[in-house]
């Protein structure tokens, strides 16, 4: 049949045409890095956003005065080359580097920094707490910023390093509309946004004014949204992509067998946990919560969810957080003890609880399925209520749940961000559990104001002890960030706080 012949030649022609395309660059390296991600960025305003895809994208574009180091346990200079603090701990002076420029060529000034931090201070958003201690900010000259605090504030450097404390060009954004800050970022970082196909791809080009000479090494960075895990992995293995984020744990060993790939399990600050609504019986009973915590086999969950790649959690804090207590007396898996605590609690079994979890996501489903089996041993029946993200979030915020599967990642090395979010009722109803303890409130307040590192350490050790005792959440495991990149990609770094660093990346052809 002639039509059949036409079809076959068409297929061959298309296939041949396919092999003619590809990116070529000078000196054996590609001009473009193509990185596949599992969630798309929505909005690139540093002050208003709390989702990682947004943060990790604008972190390619914006700089802060100070940044968290790669390991996530200290600080390094960024736009400020040095800083001093007055003996009373209330006046911070930041000295900005003189060679920093916006991608439009204008110099970065202390006035820009003052305007940006003032905006972060004034705007009602998820990160407003970071600038809470600030009383006044002033640029004393083009390169000196002086910040006065209301009182000595231990985590201040952490707060300045937070992504929401990104420095924006005041001249460009002072009278800009919200959607321009969200959609047309102008920064001083290694890359600048040149095209944004929303829900598809962020196209970035090297910022010609970036202060570090010879960086970024690759002229273009494409961050491409590929929601399907299988597709993202196949696109990497077939060479369409240079790297991908979040290959699922179940596929890590499969990808590791591919000699062309480098599969990374990068240290993160992720803690997976279940939240318990402590405002309702029987979860308002601390002994009952302890019984659940003892009946939870964290090693089993690590095996079932992470295929052994995670670390069972001992504290609410991620391992790399300052003042993480290695010697903490944590929960063990002890069914007998759980049964005994359950008896002491006075709660009569059988008890039925319902867990709200995100549908469509594999890990929460596996976690709750495993928990169902574990808790059944002490007479607690766990029913699962998978809901889509928006519906689940609404239930969680309204405290209309009993058990909720969720997780946290730190944005700063200091423990105060997480400790306050998790146990301070005013900040977020103690991670939306409804937990409220005056003893905890006192410790949290002390932790913010104590400047002596040793005394501060003791405070956060006490917070960790009290958290274990009251257990409004059950901490399950610390998960690494999974990343898979082509071995031809060199210089890629993922920070422990999450963002990728692409400025040193070069991809062989």
């Amino acid at each position, binding site marked *: *049949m002639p*039509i*059949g012949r*036409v*079809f076959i030649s*068409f297929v061959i022609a*298309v*296939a041949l*045409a*396919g*092999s003619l*395309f590809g990116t070529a660059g000078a000196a054996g390296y590609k001009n473009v890095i193509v990185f*596949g991600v599992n969630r*798309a960025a*929505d*909005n690139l305003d540093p002050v*208003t*956003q*709390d*989702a990682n895809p947004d943060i990790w994208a604008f972190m390619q574009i914006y700089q802060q005065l100070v940044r968290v180091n790669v390991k996530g346990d200290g600080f390094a200079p960024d736009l400020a080359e040095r800083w001093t603090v007055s003996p009373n701990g209330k006046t911070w002076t930041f000295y900005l580097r003189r060679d920093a420029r916006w991608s439009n060529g204008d110099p970065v000034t202390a006035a820009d920094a003052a305007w940006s931090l003032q905006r972060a201070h004034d705007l*009602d*958003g*998820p990160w*407003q707490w970071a600038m809470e201690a600030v009383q006044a900010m002033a640029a004393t000259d083009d390169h000196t910023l002086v910040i006065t605090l209301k009182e000595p504030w231990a985590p201040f450097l952490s707060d300045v390093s937070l992504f929401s404390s990104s420095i924006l060009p005041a001249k460009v954004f002072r009278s800009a509309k919200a*959607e321009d800050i*969200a*959609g047309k970022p102008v920064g001083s970082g290694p890359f600048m946004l040149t095209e944004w*196909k*929303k*829900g*598809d*791809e962020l196209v970035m080009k090297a910022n010609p004014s970036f202060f570090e000479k010879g960086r970024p090494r690759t002229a273009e960075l494409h961050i*491409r*949204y*590929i*929601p*399907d895990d*299988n*597709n*993202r992995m*196949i*696109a990497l*293995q*077939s060479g*369409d*992509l240079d790297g991908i984020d979040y290959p699922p744990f179940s596929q890590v060993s499969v990808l590791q067998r591919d000699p062309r790939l480098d599969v990374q399990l990068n240290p993160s600050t992720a803690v997976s946990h279940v939240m318990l609504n402590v405002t309702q019986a029987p979860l308002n009973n601390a002994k009952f919560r302890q019984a659940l915590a003892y009946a939870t086999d964290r090693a089993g969950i690590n095996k079932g969810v992470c295929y052994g790649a995670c670390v069972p959690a001992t504290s609410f804090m991620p391992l790399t957080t300052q003042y993480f207590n290695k010697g903490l007396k944590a929960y063990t898996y002890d069914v007998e003890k759980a049964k005994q605590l359950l008896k002491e609690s006075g709660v009569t079994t059988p008890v039925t609880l319902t867990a709200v979890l995100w549908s469509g996501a594999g890990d929460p489903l596996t976690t709750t399925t495993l928990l169902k089996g574990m808790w059944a041993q002490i007479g607690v029946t766990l029913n699962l209520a998978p*809901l*889509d*993200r*928006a*519906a*689940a*979030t*609404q*239930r*969680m*915020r309204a405290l209309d749940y009993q058990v909720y599967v*969720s997780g946290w990642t730190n944005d700063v090395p200091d423990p105060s961000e997480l400790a306050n979010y998790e146990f301070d009722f005013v900040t*977020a109803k103690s991670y*939306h559990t409804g937990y409220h303890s005056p003893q905890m409130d006192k410790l949290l307040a002390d932790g913010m104001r104590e400047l002596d590192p040793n005394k501060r350490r003791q405070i956060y050790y006490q917070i960790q002890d009290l958290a274990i005792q009251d257990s409004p959440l059950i901490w399950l495991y610390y998960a690494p960030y999974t990343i898979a990149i082509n071995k031809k990609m060199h210089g890629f770094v993922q920070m422990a706080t999450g963002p990728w660093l692409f400025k040193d990346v070069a991809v062989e052809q």
Partner: protein
Amino acid sequence: MLRYALGRIGQTVPIALLVTVLIFLLIKLLPGDPASAILGDRATDASVTALRHQWGLDRPIWQQYLVYMHNLATGNLGKSLRYQSPVTEMLPARMAVTFFLVTYSLVLSVLIAVPLALVAAAYRNRWPDQLIRAAMALPLASPGFWVGILFLILFSLKLRWFPAEGYGAGFVDHVRHLFLPALTLSYAFAAVLCRNLRSSLVDVLSTAYVDFARAKGLRRQVVLFRHVFRAALLPAVTLVGVRLTYAIGGSVVIETVFAIPGLGSWMVDSILARDYVVVQTLTLMFALGTMLINLTTDLIYPLFDPRLRMG
């Protein structure tokens, strides 16, 4: 003919209005609030309330509907809640992608189905026919998202003929990028089309006028193409129309599997983010698209069947 066409077009207006009401109510029935979905887990209650007010979500539903209809009537499709940019700005590019994909899949279906159906009908009940019929039963029983992954593994991973994701830039690149998704979308339909076309060809082949044409000495191919094929095409046209509407629905799954920035994947993302504005617009687009296809199918009939031209 003109009256027939006008009548059909007139029927679509009330349906379109009904669709807008249904869409509006259905999405409001969904639990989950866009403001907290978009602001994220760490948002403060005050900022969620402020955003709901800014978007008018705290007003009564009928007021929200009137605002929506007023905007629609003035061509204002609103701003995506999630991206804060006008829907009309994002719509054309996305629409072009899905249109390309659906058309491409239709072309592939026809290219696969027609030759096979002709062969099967010409060799009725002999081995080529049996083979084609057996082979065409397989795609009907395999779901698209699964076959899509198999195609990816074979054509992208092993053979490296086609890219695994995306849309590409420029026509040739689009053809290359969309080949696998279009094939995934088309192969099950090709099977239906092939079986359908085969049986109508077989029916026509056994009519008296075909015997007559053969008897007067016309060559086999001439009879097949000039007399049989055209007559057998009418049921296939209906099928293509019905199927096109399915393809629009199928694009929702396929675009997500292949990471194609069309209307379907946008729809999925927008539903998950409770981006009401986008979901409303896209559902309306899908509904209008379906109605347009049905209308076109109805208007095409007379071209194939002269009896309908009288009506």
